[in-house]
């Protein structure tokens, strides 16, 4: 009789402990998932914003370099990359910035990953559809360099995979721990008659 009561009391003590363990086993992964999701979202927003700002800065550099009486073409990707790396690098962690040498920009971040490996963003500079430069129809002062009637657009793209907290196998990239970025900035240059 006494033994039964003792067993029942012990079982009653054990049950809440077991219940707490099960509750913890359920809630801890959910809580960690939420925590990592919020940290990752914040990191993505920070890195993506830095990439947008860098692309804008790159477009300004490319446009200003081409838009002078001596500049005829947009600067190379290497020159623009040097200009934006200082702005981009502090915001990216464990991600490197490389210039994209080919005149054709990568279509998808996967191309950058295939060329440079994981966690690399490439800076690509492209002049779009440069129109033939004609002597301007509008009246301009002959003492100053003559401007062309039309000018091409210059696009700077920041594309690739940035480092993230996504575990391997869950990210967008092939190597895991990566999140895709693909932003561009476009502007026009001033183009002068040679």
């Amino acid at each position, binding site marked *: 009789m006494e033994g039964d009561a003792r067993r*029942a009391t012990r079982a009653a003590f054990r049950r809440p402990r077991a*219940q707490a363990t099960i509750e913890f086993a359920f809630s801890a992964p*959910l809580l960690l998932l939420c925590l990592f*999701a919020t940290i990752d979202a914040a990191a993505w*927003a920070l890195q993506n914003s830095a990439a947008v700002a860098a692309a804008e800065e790159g477009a300004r550099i490319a446009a200003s370099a081409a838009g002078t009486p001596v500049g005829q073409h947009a600067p190379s990707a290497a020159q623009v990359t040097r200009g934006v790396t200082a702005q981009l690098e502090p915001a990216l962690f464990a991600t490197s910035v490389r210039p994209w040498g080919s005149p054709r920009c990568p279509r998808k971040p996967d191309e950058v990953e295939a060329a440079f490996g994981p966690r690399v963003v490439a800076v690509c500079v492209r002049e779009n559809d440069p129109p033939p430069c004609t002597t301007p129809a509008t009246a301009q002062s002959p003492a100053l360099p003559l401007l062309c009637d039309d000018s091409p*657009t210059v696009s700077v793209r920041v594309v690739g995979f940035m480092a993230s907290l996504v575990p391997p196998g869950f990210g967008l990239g092939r190597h895991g721990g990566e999140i895709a970025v693909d932003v561009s900035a*476009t502007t*026009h240059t001033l183009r002068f008659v040679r």
Partner: protein
Amino acid sequence: MRRVQRRGRRSRDAQAILETALVIPILLLLVCNFLAVMVQVTAQVQLDSAVSLAAQARFQTTQGAYDPSGVRCCPDPRCCASPSGATSLDTAGLPTGCRYAAESFYGTMTFNQGMLRWQSAALCSTGGDSGGASASPRSAQPYPGAPPAHVACVLGATDPTGRVHPGYLDRALNPPFGLDVVTCDATATLDFSRTPLAWGVFWAPVLHAHAEAVPPPFRQ
């Protein structure tokens, strides 16, 4: 004795289920809204960038250059090789800088367009020349034939104190080759209703960007 213990266990189980049922939706609600704020920040940064480049591009052409008939601007410059009526803006007869502004804006604003509800306005406006410093400022007037676009650029003048008068061109403030200024604006509502975030996000933030630019030194 046993019945009392069973009842106690049941009430604890019910309490735990109730707690979980309350806590999990609140947790998910918080996460959803946090993600929504991050998306909003990203969209705002890109909108600021696009409007800023549009304002700068408005002056990247000769003063007095106009687009000839047949010239179209595509919302996305990448589609310029095959422009279509549905995706391009007709800028014939407008200052060339207006097309430059649109091409810069649409080429930079690559954020998911399905999430943005735009407020359209005339692509390009000016106040014209009032003829003298004594004339009162006029409100901005769209150029004839200016198509509606997601970015609106208004030519204006700055007075000696640096105050901007959008749509107001005056010979005293803004002599023929003097300092004029362009102000570009874009407004959109971020709509989460077609995303999974709609489950927990019940607000639709309005994004607005404003930028000003002055002509580059070589412009004439």
